[in-house]
């Protein structure tokens, strides 16, 4: 039982970070209709920039973190402006490929600057374990999950109540109607990309902090979040949160119980198998909007 609870808890910790990065995917998809395969590279880049600012330029962590967020927001806007804007109206395959190309560029640039070795990441949160019921839990995990929960709450409120948030939802509903209501769709696209870049960078920093180290493997996390967004439905923010937690718990349980039987690797493949199963029953994910097509 304790083993089970431990796995579930670990799952919630990773799952919450999944949810955060999935939020980035959903925000972009909802407003622009692009699935951003470069999200993992955004995470990696954010974490490396933060690391460089703290370690090489000796900035205190909060300042470095704020600067990183600013940098990522600008990068998000630039990406939208330079790479995605010319692609408006192109078929899905071109949109997929352009983000895959972008991810290759970002990966190459990051590795050219910072190399491929594993680098120690400064601990953001205290790591001494605390007793949570029957389980000892690292404080870092708790803080990480709590900050993710806070961020998700902030974003939910942002979409619900602020002017920009409502404009974003309107754009997602119908770009034409949004335009006729005087919303600048171009500004919304830029906003969506910068939000996505910022949340993935936060995810990257948290993940590197929890793991205590940073290397290029972090980028693969982006690929692991893809089943999460698809599970929840590409255009549902609630789906991203639920999907993240479900997938996090699921992969940890698979890792814990199946790995001894099959000799490792179940953690990577189990989410995908479950995903295909769910997709055959619900082709637009659990909470995704069903698209009705007409000839």
């Amino acid at each position, binding site marked *: 039982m304790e083993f089970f609870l431990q796995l579930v808890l670990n799952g919630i910790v990773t799952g919450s970070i999944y949810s955060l990065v999935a939020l980035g995917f959903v925000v972009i998809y909802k407003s622009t209709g692009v699935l951003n395969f470069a999200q993992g590279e955004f995470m990696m880049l954010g974490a490396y920039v933060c690391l460089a600012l703290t370690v090489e330029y000796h900035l205190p962590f909060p300042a470095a973190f704020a600067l990183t967020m600013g940098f990522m927001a600008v990068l998000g806007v630039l990406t939208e402006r330079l790479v995605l804007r010319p692609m408006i109206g192109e078929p899905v395959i071109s949109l997929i490929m352009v983000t895959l*190309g972008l991810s290759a560029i970002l990966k190459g640039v990051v590795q050219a600057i910072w190399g491929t070795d594993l680098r120690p990441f400064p601990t953001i949160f205290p790591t001494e374990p605390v007793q949570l019921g029957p389980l000892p839990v690292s404080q870092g995990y708790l803080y990480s999950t709590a900050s993710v929960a806070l961020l998700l709450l902030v974003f939910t409120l942002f979409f619900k109540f602020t002017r920009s948030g409502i404009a974003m939802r309107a754009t997602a509903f119908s770009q034409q109607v949004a335009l006729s209501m005087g919303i600048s769709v171009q500004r919304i696209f830029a906003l969506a990309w910068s939000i996505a870049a910022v949340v993935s960078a936060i995810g990257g920093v948290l993940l590197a902090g929890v793991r205590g180290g940073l290397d290029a493997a972090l980028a693969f996390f982006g690929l692991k979040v893809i089943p999460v967004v698809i599970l929840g439905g590409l255009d549902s923010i609630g789906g991203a949160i639920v999907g993240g937690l479900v997938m996090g718990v699921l992969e940890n349980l698979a890792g814990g119980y199946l790995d001894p039987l099959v000799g490792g*690797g179940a953690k990577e493949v189990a989410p995908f198998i479950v995903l295909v199963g769910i997709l055959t029953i619900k082709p637009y994910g659990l909470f995704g909007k069903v698209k009705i097509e007409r000839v």
Partner: protein
Amino acid sequence: MRCGDFRESYSEDMAIFDSRLPRVLLGLLLALLAALPAFATTYWLDVLNRIFIAIIAATGLNIVTGFTGLISLGTAAFLAVGGYTTAALAGKAGLPFFVVVPLSGAVAALVGLVFGIPSLRLKGLYLAVATLAAHYVVEFTVTHWDSMTGGVNGISVPAARAGGLALGDDRHIYYLILVLLVGLLFFAKNLFRTKVGKAFVAIRDHDISAEVMGVNVFRYKLLAFAVSSFYIGVAGSLLAYQARIISPENFPITVAIDYLGMVIIGGLGSILGSIYGAIFITLLPELLRLGNDALAAHWPAAMGLFSQFKSIVFGLVVVLFLMFEPDGMAARWHHVKNYWKLYPFSY
């Protein structure tokens, strides 16, 4: 349009070659390719072999993605299926080359059929992610089925053998691959002049309209997956014969992305495009390596940056092509050809 190019019957309109010149040029090209091994160094022979294999796989991917409109991220997985089937059939069962290659293709086609089933209900991005799932399932199987695949250490493949002859060295393999390449390209080019090929294209253009017109969409989608995976499986088999040892490291997800890049850069829905794209993306790292070596002579730090360099250039090429020539190199070639046909009176 060329002057005096009158098409008076349906068969004339459908002809692949509209005049004698392309036939002659194609014949010359084949003769040149047949004569090449006499001059090429081992290194360039190896590069040529890899280009030919890439052309076969890219054509396969183009059939499903470019012609049928189903985005597949499973290319690396199907290559792996073909490669490991070859390792099993040639290594463990000792079958000859001309039996192993089609069988490897057939096994890959079967696997492709299974992973094509989600296309019954999924489309676009959701289908792309389902094929991504196929990739991870195959990768997992290959890494963990130690008795069959040798796990992470990989497995060696015996030299190609046909009718008691050992055909192991690069030159022999070159001719075997060339023959298969020509045959498969001939088949693919003609496939799209038949009912089946036209059904594929109809599904790509609009699947619901295709269904209304009486195309059995599910059947043809599965068929597209099967044909495509057959091509990719054959390519995987040849890859195994050529490399002589395969391991999961040969088939990472980046390989699938490279192939998508080939198809995009070459031209979606064009056999010629698959050829150009495969040549371009296979040659790119070789040329970069030459450039990098030259650069490293003056700036030693460049030596260690090669793979990053490669990644950046690949990404840039893909992004720039998508922006400035979304129809790929095949379309550009077409424009250039038309320009010279009417030169100097082009408008």
